[in-house]
């Protein structure tokens, strides 16, 4: 039986649809209303408030905390500045991804790490020889994602923290009412947004403050269905959908390297030994087998396929996650990969997908064929390979009053 997050009294009261799913052993709202589109538009036009408590959260403290995390992560965490956050992944000795998440540096010797899978056991395997205290605070700290164009304005109503100065992937402590929370300018929507970390005891107070102050800014509680659309638009991968945890993948073929899941940019190779270094070094030299890429489906072909059956074109009601074969041509002569998740993007008005494709076919702008079922018959439609980031509004990274960052 899943357990309830500290926000459950509020989220349950608001969840008209009774539409829940299980997320990491918690009840999690899929959509508050029967259909998630109002929640999606809240993310994109106002603000959506999402309970992200089910994420796993770790505190890593101690003299060797930075060295310890650098040994585990593909990124050189010792280079991370205080008050900054990085997104990265961590690998097995063979350079296969275990999980991905964010690492926040709150102090010289104080880090906060989030992950999708439980990773306490994995992290603790590397503790020998490091002066570091690793603590699982998953069930002590609750999380909220406040995402959308008005999110900064809402937060400013409840705290005096310098949010105008807080840059993308920055983190700060903030006093809210009479308690302290941590704010990080991060999120899974690819939009302006914040993630708020708060002790369980203060969780409801925080929720209430945000909802009250947010009402003037179009806030809405949002569920995972809406999030799923935004994350595909933002080109953000999801564990167990777009790749598998190498520790749980049943066969080696299901394991992926960071290079294969579009996280190659996060790998810092030339430094002290870290998990997977040797394997990643040689993969870098020899090239990877797979890549995760973006696909934009050809709308005219889709419309044409439906027209054949006398149907108007249909778009998927929600983001999908299943494996769909990707072919080199219409004759299906060779399968060159598979799409793993996709959605109709209401804002782009495009049918988009994330796909794993053989590296040699991964050329932006080139065309492949994706299986597409209409009226029980498997057809293919043309899909153009694109960058994974389909939607990337300027507000995501910009700060009012600060010099504009380069995208």
């Amino acid at each position, binding site marked *: 039986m899943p357990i309830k997050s500290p926000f459950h009294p509020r989220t349950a009261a608001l969840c008209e649809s009774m539409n829940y799913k299980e997320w990491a052993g918690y009840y999690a709202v899929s959509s508050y209303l029967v259909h998630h589109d109002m929640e999606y538009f809240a993310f994109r036009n106002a603000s959506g408030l999402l309970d992200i408590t089910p994420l796993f959260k770790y505190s890593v403290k101690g003299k060797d905390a930075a060295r310890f995390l650098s*040994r585990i992560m593909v990124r050189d965490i010792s280079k991370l500045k205080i008050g900054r956050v990085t997104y990265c992944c961590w690998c097995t000795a063979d350079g296969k991804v275990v999980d991905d998440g964010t690492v926040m540096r709150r102090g010289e010797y104080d880090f906060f790490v989030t992950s999708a899978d439980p990773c306490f056991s994995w992290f603790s395997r*590397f503790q020998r020889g490091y002066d570091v205290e690793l603590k699982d605070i998953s069930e002590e700290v609750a999380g909220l994602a406040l995402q959308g164009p008005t999110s900064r304005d809402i937060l400013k109503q409840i705290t005096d923290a310098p949010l105008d100065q807080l840059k993308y992937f920055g983190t700060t402590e903030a006093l809210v009412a009479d308690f302290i929370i941590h704010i990080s300018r991060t999120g899974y929507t690819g939009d302006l947004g914040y993630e708020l970390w708060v002790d369980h005891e203060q969780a409801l107070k925080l929720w209430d403050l945000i909802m009250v102050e947010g009402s003037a800014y179009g806030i809405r509680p949002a569920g995972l269905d809406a999030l799923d659309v935004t994350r595909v638009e933002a080109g953000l991968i999801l564990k167990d959908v777009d790749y598998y945890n190498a520790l749980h993948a049943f066969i080696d073929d299901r394991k992926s390297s960071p290079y294969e899941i579009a996280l190659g940019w996060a790998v810092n190779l030339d430094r002290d030994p870290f*998990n997977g270094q040797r394997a990643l070094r040689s993969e870098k030299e020899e090239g990877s087998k797979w890549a995760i890429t973006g696909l934009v489906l050809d709308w005219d072909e889709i419309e044409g396929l439906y027209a054949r059956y006398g149907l108007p074109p249909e778009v998927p009601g929600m983001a999908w996650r299943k494996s769909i074969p990707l072919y080199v041509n219409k004759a299906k002569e060779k399968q060159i990969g598979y799409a793993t998740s996709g959605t109709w993007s209401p804002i782009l008005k495009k049918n988009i997908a994330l796909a794993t494709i053989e590296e040699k076919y991964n050329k932006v702008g080139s065309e492949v064929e994706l299986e597409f079922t209409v009226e029980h018959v498997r057809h293919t439609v043309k899909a153009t390979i694109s960058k994974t980031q389909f939607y990337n509004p300027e507000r995501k990274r910009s700060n009012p009053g600060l010099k504009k960052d380069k995208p």
Partner: protein
Amino acid sequence: MGKKYDVIVIGGGHNGLTAATALAKKGKKVLVLEKNKTLGGLASYREFHPDYFSNGLLQDTSCVRKQIVDDLQLEKYGLNIRSERPSVTLLSKNGKAIRLSGDVKATASEISGFSQSDGKAYVEYSNFIKNISPFLTALLNEVPPDLMNFGTWELLALGKLGWKLKGLGKKTMNEFLKVAPMCVADFLNEHFETDFLKAGICAPAIYGSFTGPWSSYTTLNLLMHECTSRVRIEGGPKALIDALEKAAKNHGVTVETNNAVQRIQLDKNGSVHGVVDSNEDVHASAMVLSTCTPQDTFLKFLSPNEIDYPLEHDITHYRSRGTTAKLNIAVKGNIRSRHTNQLFEYGRTGNSFDEIEKAFDAVKYGRYSDEPILDIHIPGSATPSGGQVISVLVHFGPYELREGWNESSRSGLEKTIMNTLEGYLDFSDCTIVHKELLTPVDIESSYGITNGHIYHGEHAVDQIITRPIPKCARYDTPVKGLFIGGSGSHPGGGITCAPGYLSAQRILKF
């Protein structure tokens, strides 16, 4: 900086010296670094009381491989080796004793004095050992086949072993396959009826294996011991180490004692670059052979991020729960055996399987045995002042004693050992000058062996087939240029010189 040495050997024990000599003999420039002031490791000659010396922590040299002695021409360096293992006197509680000698007929007739059928069975038993010997010695005296890759060569090597097994003949092979996984108690019960005879024969199968005679697979340990215990070295461990030292030096090996390696240095690519010694001096070499325990080699000499997790996991889960203590006794005067007219050189106690099993039960719960099994060695040669030394390996006393090793537990163990020992030896005509008790914790600290395990790791099937761990079973390791060749490597512990010798053979192939 130029590389002065082709190979640096960490540890100047019997294996380190053997490897160094074998390598130097093939023209390699070798440096041996030994942390203690005397060479020999577990076979080293140590003054434990003024004028009294213990001839090795391990005292049995009967398993030293004759072919290694021949190849290194140790006889040229003063070693006196004979192809008949020394007699071991099995001692029973009720005053009976049997001398197991290398001479099967003589032993059988002595056994017949207790039981006609056991006498007959001993001949059959010895024949069985003789019959399976070609297979087991092939297994134990060669670099093991590669079980990490399955190419044609590896399969051929495996096929060769399989063929050796088939070559024993159908009857012997089937019998071997039947008995090898058995517990040694079942196996010996099928042959013999006299309890203390069975117990005495089985004892070597139990040493250092963290099992009792009722545990499966102990027969395999026994068979391995029986097939390799073949020689007598006059002067025991000291004579062996002296000859090895001479041979090593004669072949140009540089030996530094009192110099403990601090760490192994790797280059940017993770390959061996050299070692850092106790003076923080760097000795450069592209190859390092460690004869220390696998745990020390990987966990002490390398930084945590220099070995990957699967390797660290395997090494930390390599089982080496020390269960053996040692008591060295310095006496003046005459010691007498209560069982035999003549004082024996090697004696073994343990009256029945149950007694050994019960002695073992204790360590499972972190206690030492109420009635330990003793492996007694009385070298017989008098000390300069006319005294005698009795050396006793004591089974079982755990490394992790639940009450902790302190004055009271130490004296408790010592008393227990003496009580047991006095059942077999008569001290009334002599004075005990000094007793030195080495618990597994002391053994760890004085000899630098992890958990004080006398074999650098338990003799258990999985740790025999691929010793110490699959990735390092053929002496090379995942760290390029780093080799291991101590008792924690194939074919295992005891004074055999085999791991050192075979690791040298392997290094020569690189």
